[in-house]
């Protein structure tokens, strides 16, 4: 499996090209081709999951080729536990999203081609080990995302799309500046992340500080951390279902992934310095703030979007603690949030497809109209509110445990969100699914087989990981321990200019 990561990353792109070559009028063929195009990556992902050596925290399956020698840009792909879990999440969600997109009628070819391109971008981000390559993949996702929201989105899609685009770009340009500064901080100049990590102890404190902040803002916009989050509700509300799923399920993770992949090992000193305010306090605030905002929403999707903000707060908080529990919890939360929120968005999409609106007050009693649907809703909602036995509980409790060691007041504040989360989740459940049946929606059909197939795997993952979290936890345990050590043990450089 020499080209494992490369094939995994670029097979969807190949699929996109095939899709573009298909006849325009045969939508069914396009749909199925796209679905098939996501499968090889999924299989490779599963193979990777199986064959990844879980006992070590080092990079595996590394591929390294020279790309632009003049600029010392290389093509380096490789995975450690952190990347594997995210790759896995991506390849799992992609086929489901394609399946969930079968209802798209307009510009089918374009939609699926863009989706597959997006998948390549996402996989590339998680596999790239050269900063320049990373950046290119990072930006590669912007375009498809812009169009997927902008063309296939809701009524205010243009606004949402451009807002998403601009916000992300602001982060990107800051990242670009920091990346180039880092490039010049090393002699010989390099973008090789592994080398950059090795040299981490030689970067001066001041340089680390501002570069960290610049990168952090870039990543924080993606997470999205307060106060860079306002693009998220808009983007989610307007995006088509599958795109919301990808957005919440994978794209948000890139922010936290980036922090762990770049900020932590390359700027350990700055991480130490800023972890509290930038990550822990902000994360904690995200948790509570997102939950409170979610409570005030009237649109189901926007509620779920704010719940994402809240849940991503756990990730930030957990990773800030640098404790094994906190960091493992954070990464596990990334994975779990990916599956749980994917379910939530798929479920909201189901009702939107039928009723063509998402107003929480506009429904009622769907439980008796669509019992199977309600079953999945219940699983997803209770997973989202952190019910023990379901996956999100594990990660949240780990994060909270880690946080307690780090700062008790933060842990208590964060833990208080369990009440708020339960509040808005149940409140929505009550108003939409319970109560007297709304006469308008008596005749809504229950889930179709296609919808069940998209939801069931996620539900299974949610339950299985609640009982046996080590299936995923083991992947990144050693990686995170090493990462935590790097950051904890970082010491300032003595009398040595990092920038030449």
């Amino acid at each position: 499996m020499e080209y494992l990561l490369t094939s995994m990353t670029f097979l969807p792109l190949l699929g996109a090209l095939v899709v573009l070559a298909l006849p325009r009028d045969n939508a069914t063929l396009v749909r199925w081709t796209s679905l098939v195009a996501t499968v090889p990556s999924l299989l490779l992902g599963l193979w990777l999951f199986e064959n990844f050596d879980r006992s070590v925290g080092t990079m595996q399956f590394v591929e390294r080729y020279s790309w632009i020698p003049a600029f010392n840009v290389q093509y380096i792909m490789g995975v450690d536990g952190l990347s594997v879990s995210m790759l896995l999440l991506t390849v799992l969600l992609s086929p489901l999203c394609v399946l969930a997109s079968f209802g798209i009628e307009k510009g089918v070819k374009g939609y699926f081609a863009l989706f597959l391109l997006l998948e390549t971008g996402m996989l590339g981000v998680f596999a790239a080990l050269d900063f320049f390559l990373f950046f290119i993949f990072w930006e590669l996702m912007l375009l498809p995302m812009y169009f997927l929201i902008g063309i296939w989105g809701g009524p205010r899609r243009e606004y949402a799309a451009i807002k998403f685009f601009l916000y992300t770009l602001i982060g990107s340009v800051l990242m670009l500046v920091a990346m180039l500064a880092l490039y010049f901080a090393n002699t010989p100049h390099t973008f090789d992340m592994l080398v950059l990590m090795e040299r981490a102890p030689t970067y001066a404190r001041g340089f680390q500080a501002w570069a960290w902040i610049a990168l952090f803002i870039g990543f924080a916009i993606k997470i999205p951390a307060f106060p860079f989050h306002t693009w998220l509700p808009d983007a989610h509300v307007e995006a088509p279902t599958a795109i919301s799923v990808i957005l919440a399920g994978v794209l948000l993770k890139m922010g936290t992934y980036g922090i762990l992949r770049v900020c932590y090992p390359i700027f350990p000193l700055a991480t130490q310095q800023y972890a509290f305010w930038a990550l822990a306090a902000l994360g904690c605030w995200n948790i509570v703030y997102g939950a409170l905002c979610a409570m005030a929403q009237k649109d189901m999707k926007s509620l779920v979007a704010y719940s994402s903000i809240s849940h991503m707060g756990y990730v930030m908080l957990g990773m800030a603690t640098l404790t094994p529990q906190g960091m493992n919890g954070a990464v596990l939360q990334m994975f779990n949030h990916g599956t749980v929120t994917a379910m939530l968005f798929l479920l909201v999409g189901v009702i939107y497809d039928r009723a063509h609106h998402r107003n929480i007050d506009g429904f009622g009693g769907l439980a008796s109209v669509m019992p199977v649907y309600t079953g999945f809703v219940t699983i997803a909602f209770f997973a989202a509110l952190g019910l023990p036995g379901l996956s999100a509980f594990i990660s949240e409790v780990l994060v909270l445990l880690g946080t307690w060691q780090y700062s008790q007041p933060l842990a208590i504040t964060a833990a208080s969100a369990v009440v708020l989360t339960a509040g808005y989740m149940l409140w929505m459940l009550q108003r939409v699914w319970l109560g007297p049946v709304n006469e308008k929606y008596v005749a809504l059909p229950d889930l179709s087989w296609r919808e069940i197939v998209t939801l069931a795997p996620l539900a299974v993952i949610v339950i299985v990981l609640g009982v046996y979290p080590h299936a995923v936890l083991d992947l990144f345990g050693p990686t995170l321990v090493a990462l935590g050590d790097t950051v904890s043990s970082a010491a300032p450089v003595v009398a040595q200019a990092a920038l030449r």
Partner: protein
Amino acid sequence: MQAIRWIVLLPLIGAAINLTLGSRIQRSAGRAAVAVFGSGMALASFAIAVTGFMRLRTLEPESRLLVDTVLPWLHVGTLDISIAFQLDPLSAVMALVVSGVGSLIHIYSYGYMDEDPALWRFFGLLNLFLFAMLTLVLGDNILVMFVGWEGVGLCSWALIGFWYKDHANTAAANKAFLFNRIGDFAFLCGMMLLFWTLSGLGHATLVFRELGAVAPLLEGQLLWGVPVVTLVTLALFIGATGKSAQIPLYVWLPDAMAGPTPVSALIHAATMVTAGVYMVSRLHCLFSMAPVTLDVIAVTGAATALMAATIALTQNDIKKVLAYSTVSQLGYMFVALGCGAYAAGVFHLVTHAFFKACLFLGAGSVIHACHHEQDMRRMGGLRTKMPLTFWTFLISTMAIAGLPPLAGFFSKDEILWKAFQREPLLWGVGLVTAGLTAFYMFRQVFLVFFGESRAGASVEAHADHSAAGAHDDHHGHHAHEVHESAAAITLPLVLLAIGALTAGWLGIPSALGGSNLFTEWLAPVFAAGGEHHAEAHEGLELEYALMAVSVLVALGGITLAYLVYLRKSLSADTFSRIARGVPYRLSFNKYYVDEIYYGTVLAGTLALSRALGWFDKVVIDGVVNGAAASVRAVAFLGGGIDKFVVDGLVNFTAHVFDSAGGALRLVQTGNINAYVYVLLIGVTAVLMAGAW
């Protein structure tokens, strides 16, 4: 010991099958199939629990511990948690009660829910509840217990809102879950504090059987100047108040009566609400080290017992009376725990499970017979129509009133005795409560079973609405004749009544010549906690005297109820007019606690939420994007805000940039002279800046 897991897993399997395939089974194989399957799982679980219990009995008292490790669960850093179950005397007792009473209620449910189309769901949820409760009880560490702890909350939510088409039911369900969550939050905090303190001491563990050994290490550990163990236990106790409906988190329990009656019996009387009691007993090694917490528990318990009893006096809903009575009885248990008498608390838990379950089921039987009428003022005279129900109900009422030799007498008396030893004032409160209990319970009996039938009588306007018409579908059936319920309903009643009659005999104190088997059985568990069970022989006379007093008080309460409600020689109005009716109104309106909570906490949170939602939409969107309020004001004055929001200028920054762009466009007048101006101004400006 591989079998223990099946105590837990069988109900889970039952739940999984019934919840996923149940509706098909019910459609193809009939309602009975679902019920039999569900009940069968519960019974099987009970059977295994019995074998486990038997197995324990064969062991030496000190080694009565069976552990079944199922799966390593969480191993991160110092945290090492497995999914494991343990059977020791305490958890065995609980498991027996839970699965035993649970099985009976399963059977009862088949009779009670005879008209409900979603029987499969009901049985599925009951099974799921059993699973969760048994996990709570049998879990060998705090985290597994927490799984059950929240799991029962989930089931409680689902079952209270079982008839989800009624908005009130779902509201009650949510309320229950949220109040439980508040407790869970505290529980979580306590757990984390405990874990990290122990971890810091080099003994990171949350496993119960190890805690006993490491607990003494906590001595002298401080956090924020307070002993850690006190903080831990207080936090855990707050968790317990949520689950076990104690002040200040009790308010959900009465509302929870919106659920079907078997649910009230199972969850909100016999099992789930006692989880707090079980938890405190389970962790007695910690609680015993925290005298402050014990005091808090005792006082809270006593206050809850008294307060709930006073509220129960005036309620008209048959189930609400029982609900407040439950709250009150749980208060008793906490008094016992607060006094360090864990065994006594658990003993009362067990007896209470029998008689309260029986009472609820009896009430259910009545409600069922009266076509879902729950207002006692519309009942009466059912004694003859439903003899079996009446007798079982009466036995249980006598048990709860503490009349010897029924179960309640022994357990309550032991608590009172321990309370007296600890602090006579506690005993006093307990005694008053006992009297009130006897009064309102017999008030219920008299109103429901004696006198003339008042079915169809009009009730005052201020009747309690929240539970009055639990179930709209069944209105309009009033004209039917009331008759005794089916065997599926009466059989459990009888069995439970027998329990209510005899369960107390397990713990006849030595003062009455008994051997107090129950305390002895639990002794190995509580030995580590240092519970004193050296009987004070010199206080024997005192003990007799106290027993007599409490029996007299109970009889007094019964007599008063008789005078007011049966003989009517005393008018209830006389009492309600005491002190201008203030006490009556307070009691009738449950001290307005709901209203206060709603007005402060809930309204505050919602207001904050709305404010932040607005803030997020307006201010953050504005500020983040770098434009101050002034810019917005300008945009607004310019009449541009609409265009701006609607027409999709990305955000306020865009607006600023756009304005700048607009301004720059104005410079581009198209007049060539002006262009040359700009050129020259540019040059001159640069020259001036550079030359000087």
